Every structure is written in structure tokens, then in C-alpha cells.
């Protein structure tokens, strides 16, 4: 079995968390905003706002993933955030016509 004792593996893991987890969060946040604003602005503007914000959210998520104490924590919290946003979007989809 490969042992991941070299700290470089943790840096690599963190990079993956920031890249993939951050992108997932950008996508799920844009879905969340598009559902949240759907009622008041209509799908086109709501989605547009969601997508406009997604890059800033990606940047913040990636930066946070490098500042938090461990790589494991970066993965876990990004996963949690993603799940929360997707669940909320799902719920909002039920409420929205």
C-alpha cells in the first residue's frame, strides 16, 4: 500500500480540493442563487446573477481551502457546503412554480 506520509501529498490533496471542490461550489451556488431569485426576477436574470457571482465564490472557496488547518478539513467542509446548497436549491425548486 502506498503511504501518503510525504507532506507533498497533502498539498496536492488541497490543490484538488480547491480546484474541484471550488468548481463544484461555484456551480451549486449559481444554481442556488438562480432558484432563490427565481420568484422576483425570473429564471434568466436569476441564473445570470448566479453565474456572475460564481467566479467570485470559486475564488473565495479556493483561497479558503488553502487557509484552513488541514486538507481533510478543506475537503469535508467544501463537501458539506456543496450538499447544503444543493439541498436548499432542491427545496426551493419544490416551492417555486
Amino acid at each position, binding site marked *: 500500500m502506498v503511504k501518503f506520509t510525504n507532506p507533498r501529498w497533502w498539498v496536492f490533496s*488541497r490543490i484538488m480540493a480547491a480546484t474541484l471542490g471550488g468548481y463544484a461550489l*461555484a*456551480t451549486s451556488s*449559481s*444554481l442556488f442563487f*438562480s432558484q432563490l431569485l427565481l420568484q422576483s426576477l425570473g*429564471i*434568466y*436574470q436569476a*441564473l*445570470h*446573477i*448566479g*453565474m*456572475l457571482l*460564481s*467566479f*467570485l465564490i*470559486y*475564488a473565495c472557496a*479556493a*483561497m479558503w481551502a*488553502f*487557509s484552513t*488547518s488541514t486538507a481533510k478539513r478543506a475537503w469535508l467542509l467544501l463537501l458539506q457546503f456543496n450538499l447544503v446548497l444543493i439541498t436548499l436549491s432542491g427545496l426551493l425548486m419544490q416551492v417555486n412554480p
Partner: protein
Amino acid sequence: MKGDFRQSMKWLHTWVGLVVGWVLVFMFITGTSGYFKKEITRWMEPERPLASTHLDKGELLAMSQRYLAQHATDAKRWQIQLPNSRDGNLTLKWRKPPKKGERRGKRITKIINTDTGLATENIRATGGGSALYSLHYRLHYMPRIVAYWIVGFCTMLMLIAVITGVIFYKKIFSDFFTYRAKKGLIGWLDIHSVLSVIAIPFHFMITYSGLLFFLATYMALSFNLSLNSDQQGEYYDQVFPNNIVHEKSNVLGRLAPLSDMYIVSKQHWKKDTLTNVTVNFPMDSNSRVKFSRWETDITYNPEDQLVFAGVSGKIIEIPTRKVTVPGQINDGFISLHEGKFATPIVRGLYLFVGLLGAGMVASGLILWTTKRKPKQLKKTKGPDFGYRLVEQLNIGTIVGLPIAIALYFWANRLLPVGMENRAAWEINCLFISWAVLLIYPAFRPAITAWYEQLKISAFVFCFIPLLNFITTDKHLGITLPRSDWNLAGFDLTMLAIGLAFSFAAYKVKKHVIVKALKPNGDTYKTDENLAIAGFSSSTAKKESN
């Protein structure tokens, strides 16, 4: 990472910047050239006549109308670009009707010689300024979509680098006014911060807006999940609304003289600012003529266009576009990125900040090596491979890429005019010479390679006006007396860039090489100094003689 938030941001800033730094320098330089793509294209087609900005626009419009009515009767749309401060030629464009299997017909562009009213023949095939500037988002030698994703990835990392840079460098504004020259590391750190701070809003804007161009590509998942294909069309109509959809009547109609409409437009705009005319369905009774001037607003100004009914020549009031708030923000960012509204002075400012951006990334890359240099030079086996690689790529990109671009202009003048795939070979020349200049520093000590490539770049840029003099009849000796500032401006700019590189080469020689030779240097003995400068004693002595 290292506990402290700002420290981890500093780490991130360093490595994110290093990973994509060279691509960013490439994007900044080629992208900045785009602010002058019309000017560059005109210089790259020296068969074109000299500028005719002094002629009356009404006469030019009549001339265009005569030409188009003779040669482009089957076109759906005519486009006329009048001589202006950016492009001094009268340009006519249309598309031939599509042949079988074609989606759109062949595009025709004619440059009209205003003395004769005829089109200029045998203009050399060239990519011009458009081919050069489109490299910054389209790259080259790869499918479009791959290029967009690579560019998007690099831009995203640039955005992170901008934000982390602001975060960790908290004394950003107080340190702005401190420049401590002559202390290797601190000098470069100051240069990097100054270049970044001067234009930080520009750097943020250009990066973020760059991502917005391909919004639906990068966010494909949420875009496709949220909207079906019909809705996607509607989405674009909402974000970028068109003025009006306009159909033809299929009854023949006679287009009123464009010169008459020009008189009306002058009264309407109070100023003689017309630059472009578009005629839709020129042979139809329901033809429309659109007069436009340079954009006067960052977002959309309906006053920038006048629409005439083609047959009657009367102004048609068009309903203003319905814009959404996010659409306007999106539009504003894209407009700031492209700078289409920019007056000559603002365009100069764009050039300045664009080069600041390139300088910011370049100085950051140099800083990376400067910081590690003392430690690397103490290693018994010589510097690490990674360190050497960064140093080599720095030289090959920061000085090598400008040389390659200059050679792109050389290729335009030197490749045979009748050559097959000529335009493609111009770009090939750019990339071949860049590749050579990237590899070359591997075989030379770093400082020698810097010095040599700076000398080469000084030569290739300074020589461009002379090359132009030898190969064409549109050189400074003609363009200056005839005050064709487009063409003269290009030659003079090349000369100025060449002189700037000569100055840089001179500085490198004076400060690094000569200082290293001084006996009893401040801290190091002569030989050590030479080692740091990457010179053997013999080369250095030769240089100083």
C-alpha cells in the same frame, strides 16, 4: 497551511502566479495589442493607399454606394467603414450569397482607393492585428473549446492571484511610495507592488470580465441544467437584446443616396462623428440604413445609432432596447474589457495599463527567482532544475515573446507576397521564433541570456521602420510628410519599443556586469559577484571593454 491566514495567502499568491505566469504574460501582451488591431492590420497591408481622412464623408459615401451597387447587388448587407483616426482607409465589406452546403457566404473586404474609386488589388494575405490579438483568448494550434478552457483556467488563477495579493500585502498603500533601489530583492519587490497597485482596479476588471466572455461555457453545468435549448436562446435575447428583427419585403426598391442621409445625420448629432454605415437588404423596398459613430458610453447609448428607411431616406425611431440589470453589468464589464468606447487618449491609457499588467506578472516571476537566488547559488551541484527552468522560461517569455511578435511583423514584410498559406506562416514564424528563444537560455548563463535577448529585441524592433523603408513605399519618409499618422504611428511605436529595450540592455550591462567587475565590491569578492551574475570572468571582461 502555515497557520497564519496571511502567510497562507502569500504562499498561494506565489505558486498560483508561478503556475500560469508565462501564459498570463502572453495573454497580457497579445491582448494589449488588440487595442490597436485596426492600426496593426493597416500597417500589415502596405498595398493599401494612404489615409484619406481629409475627404468629405458625403463624397466618400456616394463613392461607396456607386461601387457596391455595381459589385455587390446580391449581398444581404453592405458595411461601409469611413476613414477615421484609427484606420485611414475607406473599407467596404459584404458577404457573397452562400453556395450549396455553406452556412454563410464568403466574406469580401475591399479597400477603396479614394483617388480612383476602385478597389485596391493584390493586397497581401495577412492575419493582421486580428490574428495577433485573438491569440490572447483563442491561443493557437488547438480546438477552440480547448483554448477557451485553458484560458479560463489561467484567468481564474489570475483572479485568485489578484485577490490574495491584495490580502497579504496589507501595507499596500503606504509602501506604494517607497522604492528602495539598488538592493536586488527589495528593488524587484517594490517594482512588483508598484506595477500592481497603480492599476489594481484594471487588473481586477480585465480578469473578471475575461471570464464573463465565456460565462455559459465555464458554467456549462448550471446553464444546461437550468435552461432547455429554447430557453437558452431566450436567455441570450434577454442579456444582449437586439434592436429589432427586420425582414425584407421581396419587392425591389431603390436606395436613396447615402450622402443625403449623411447631411441629416450631421444635423442630428450636431457633430461630424459618423464612422460606420450598414445597409440591410440594399435592393429591397424595405431596406434599412444604420449610421453609427464610435461608442460614446461604457454601456449602451441608443444615441450612437441612427436608422433610416432606405428608400425614403427618413429617420426611423426605433424602440430602445430593454436591458436587465445583470445584463447591463455584464455588458459594462465586457465593454470595459474591449475598450471600444475609448477615445485616442483613453486608448493610450489602455496600452499603458495593459503593459503594466504584463510588467506586473513579469516582475512577479523575476521576483520568484531573485528571492531564491542566494540559496540556489550556494548549492554544490549548482541551481536546481526547477529554478533553472523558471529562469529560462522567464527570459524566453519576458524578452523572447516581444522578439517573436516583432518577427511576426518581419515575416509580414519578408515572406513572398504570392506564398501559399501566407497568413498562417506569419503566425508560424511567431511561434517558431518564440520556441527557439525559450530553449536558447538553457545553454547560456542567465544574465548573459537576458543581456543577449534584450540586445536582439532592441535590434528587431528598431529595425522595423527601416525594413518597412526597404520593402514598401509606405515608410516614414512618405507617411510623415503626408501626415498619415496611422502608419507613421506604428513605425514610431516600434522604434520607441526598440529604444526601450536598448535602454534595458544598457542597464543590465551597466549595473550587473560592470558592477561585478569592480574590485573590492561591497559584500562579495569579484569572482563571487561574477558567479552571481552568472558570468565567467572572460565574458564579463569582454563586455566591459
